[in-house]
């Protein structure tokens, strides 16, 4: 049963934003809910010690992840993005499946990296995502190379890479942004101003006011948007993606948002003001804000969203059941695949069979 009924006011609904179809708005909602619910499931698995390593939440940042990825062209061999640890939503938009995420966190043999890498560090270049490494900023030069290949081959494809506010202090970020700008690569950079780089606040990270100022220093077209406004992020990214596709070079979109959880699940957030977290949760949650827009504008109705919530929960239940008891990789599977040739590293004599 719906919590409250919405009168049929279709004829009076405000026009759809950003040339989006109603079904697309609803689909974005589904990805937001999928991200949040999947992370909640991961918390439960973490507390049961089934997640092997750390757990990194994107609570409060799902909006910009989902909306920016949603502005790309998706499908086989289309646009490619490179997500960070808090861009689970972007990966799901590009086609990563919840069961893959669950298997990664639990280091299962059947995980995309067969237990070799953690969490969202995996890729599917056909679907269009290239997993990060932990060295922040490094994916900017790599994505410069990916998009350089698009340009060299005359393909109408675009790349998108995420960097956190802390990552904009790294050398590879600056080198990569500059090289991509000079080579006029079709690259969109999303600068996530989420206020906390582990424990470090912006004023200890950089002396500029906005991350966009850094990008402008390289001759890159840069804008700053409200990162928790799904439609604003989508609109800005769509605009940048279209310009990049038309050969207008690198674009930078700074999204102001807030990291409501710690760096990782173990982090007690003692350095983050409690009232700050509460204020963002209460007044500026991207999912709440988007739901409000959907309902107030008549773009969706509560029963539709509730049905999505149930379907998402079922999907994650099924995915969890399908892999939670799966085995870890066999120990000797650690050896192959460092090189194409030789095919496997030598097994040392003291581990002889």
């Amino acid at each position: 049963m719906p919590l409250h009924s919405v009168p049929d006011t279709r004829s009076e609904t405000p026009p759809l934003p950003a040339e989006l179809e109603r079904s697309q708005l609803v689909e974005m909602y589904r990805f937001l809910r999928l991200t949040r619910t999947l992370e909640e499931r991961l918390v439960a698995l973490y507390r049961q010690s089934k997640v092997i390593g750390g757990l990194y939440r994107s609570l409060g940042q799902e909006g910009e992840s989902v909306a920016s990825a949603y502005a790309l062209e998706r499908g086989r061999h289309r646009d490619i993005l490179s997500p960070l640890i808090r861009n689970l939503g972007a990966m799901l938009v590009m086609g990563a499946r919840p069961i893959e995420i669950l298997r990664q966190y639990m280091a299962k043999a059947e995980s995309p990296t067969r237990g070799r890498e953690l969490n969202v560090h995996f890729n599917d270049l056909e679907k269009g995502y290239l997993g990060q490494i932990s060295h922040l900023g490094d994916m900017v030069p790599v994505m410069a190379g990916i998009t350089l290949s698009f340009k060299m081959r005359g393909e109408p494809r675009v790349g998108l890479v995420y960097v956190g506010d802390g990552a904009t202090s790294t050398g590879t970020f600056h080198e990569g942004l500059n090289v991509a700008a000079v080579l006029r690569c079709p690259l969109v950079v999303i600068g996530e101003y989420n206020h906390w780089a582990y424990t470090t606040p912006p004023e200890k990270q950089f002396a500029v006011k906005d991350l966009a100022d850094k990008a402008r220093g390289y001759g890159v077209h840069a804008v700053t948007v409200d990162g928790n406004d799904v439609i604003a992020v989508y609109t800005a990214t769509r605009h940048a993606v279209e310009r990049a596709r038309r050969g207008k070079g690198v674009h930078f979109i700074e999204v102001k948002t807030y990291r409501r959880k710690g760096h990782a699940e173990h982090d007690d957030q003692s350095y983050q003001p409690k009232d700050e977290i509460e204020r963002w949760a209460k007044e500026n949650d991207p999912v709440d804000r988007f739901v409000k827009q959907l309902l107030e504008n008549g773009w969706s109705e509560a029963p539709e969203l509730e049905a999505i919530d149930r379907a998402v929960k079922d999907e994650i239940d099924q995915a969890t059941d399908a892999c939670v008891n799966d085995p870890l990789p066999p120990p000797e599977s650690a050896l192959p695949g460092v090189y194409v040739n030789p095919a496997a590293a030598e097994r040392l004599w003291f581990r002889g069979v």
Partner: protein
Amino acid sequence: MAEVTFLEALRQGLWEEMERDDRVFMLGEDIGVYGGAFKVTDGFQKKFGEARVIDTPISEAAIVGAAAGAAHMGLRPVAEMQFIDFISCAYDMLTNYVATARYRAGLSTPIVVRGPCGGYVRGGPFHSQNPEAAFFHTPGLKIVYPATARDAKGLIKASIRDEDPVIYLEHKWLYRRIKETLPEGEEILTPIGEARLARAGTDLSIITYGATVWKALDAAEQMEKEDGLSVEILDLRTLVPLDDAAIMATVRKTNKVLIVHEDTRTGGVAGEIAARINEQAFEWLDGPIARVTAHDVPLPYAPTLEDFVLPQSDDIVKAARWLANY
């Protein structure tokens, strides 16, 4: 048949691969319009265009990172470090991103990172380095280090065709000093991972690579004349993967081993080779494994200092005589 320098042989190899495969492209500092600091890529941009011979900003990490990204998409980038000393600026990108890519994520990253290395040229601390040991330790990277013009050509071609990332070290002291007659119209490909017997002998073995192959050859000639010693020289050509079979074969043949490299001693490649001989051919040794290497200091500029720090033919003669008499 035409006599070519080491540098010209390298150039030919690059040129042939650019002609053969349009997925091959180059990026680096001053390589296009100017043709590179040592003119290795002279004329390439004119022939192959700006899209395939790309002048970049001074950003070694981004050069390597961009090469990796393009390689993931099926291209075959050849990245130049203007001097190999600057490869350390891309250390993170090579060791953390490139070297791990296949293992951790199944990513194909067939890149070549090449550049002039080595001393004996009064280059000082930052234009003379041999960086192999820094990468030798990291699984996932191949390292080749040709000593002859033929191998300069054969190894660059093999490196470009290899499915794994390759660091290609070209000794600038050899660029215009070494000449060799190479056959025309015949494709030269030097297999990665195979050492070359540079000189056959029976009394002791010198295992080396790069410029010191030539220093060792000089030493061997001198010892043959003055001492009647028959010295075998193994030119490794590839450092990763090491040709263990060729190393053990020469140990079993002469039973005495001197390892020579231009790089500094501590943590150098010679230590690993010595350990492998110890593990695989201990019973065949008739004397301790000896090393001639650079001293453990940054490479100084003044000729008196550089000549003292780097291994010279006389040092090799002295160490080899000691070992022969052991």
